[in-house]
């Protein structure tokens, strides 16, 4: 019993130490990057940066709506229906269903990652970059990494679109073989 308690206490101490170290290192990294010159540069370009971010915010929102419609239609109007048709004809649809399930899950991840990115960018736009240039800089940095994640999601969706096409092609080859 005492050994278990010792292990728990040791675990808590190690975890706290790691947290403190991580916090210190990230704080040091942040403070070490921004010099006074940089902070004044951010203050100086504050309004023009906000204007650029605002434009990006709007064009990305439009992109999200237009791309989202195309990705959605591909799933609901084509993939799901083809899977259902295979199933209705008692044909093997395991491969196509597997790809379309991955596609739908990637689409959900894309939606939630875009949401996180949009919220971060909106928060950044609300910040007072003259009063808190450092916070503004790191908020943009965070939004940047979130946007990269959204781009990664788009690339994953494109790969899955190709995978579904390959799965249909394989099905067609098998179908031809069985018809002979």
């Amino acid at each position: 019993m005492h050994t278990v308690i010792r292990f728990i206490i040791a675990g808590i101490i190690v975890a706290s130490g790691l947290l403190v170290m991580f916090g210190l290192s990230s704080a040091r990294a942040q403070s070490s990057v921004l010099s006074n010159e940089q902070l004044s540069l951010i203050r100086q370009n504050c309004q023009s940066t906000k204007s650029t971010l605002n434009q990006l915010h709007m064009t990305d929102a439009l992109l999200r709506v237009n791309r989202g419609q195309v990705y959605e239609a591909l799933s609901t109007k084509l993939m799901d229906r083809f899977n259902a048709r295979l199933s209705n004809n008692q044909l093997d649809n395991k491969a196509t269903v597997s790809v379309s399930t991955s596609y739908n899950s990637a689409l959900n991840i894309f939606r939630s990652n875009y949401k996180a990115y949009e919220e971060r960018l909106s928060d950044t736009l609300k910040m007072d970059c003259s009063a808190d240039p450092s916070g503004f800089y790191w908020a943009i940095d965070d939004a940047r990494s979130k946007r990269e994640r959204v781009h990664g999601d788009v690339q994953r969706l494109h790969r899955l679109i190709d995978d579904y096409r390959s799965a249909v092609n394989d099905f067609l080859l098998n179908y031809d073989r069985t018809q002979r």
Partner: protein
Amino acid sequence: MEDQQNHAELFSADDQEVPSFWDRHRLSLLLIITVIVTIVFTTVSIVLYDVSGTVQLDLSRPGYRSISSQIDHDTTIDEYSAFGTLDREAIEEFIALYEEQAAKAKAVDAFNGDPLNPELLELVESSTN
């Protein structure tokens, strides 16, 4: 005769029951319940609107009006029927529809580039300088 009169008075006094608190405030209660239900449903809808990500798709919000006209409304595609026999012709029909839509989906490498690069935003001194 007098007994009968007394009995009638007593009977009519019993018949006129004093209305309870809820009976007297029935209308007010109805209004309060209606307002509470409205507030609850409105709150739930706003929370769902925000949490589900619908807010990000709503370009009718203030500030987005200028771009809402650029929404691509030509997204109608020929739906593939989930019913019917499946022969080679039906599969080829699907492939044609799918390739058309897939080309449309992959035509744009959305969210590429690095527009939030601090150098591009001139938040740091350019490394090329």
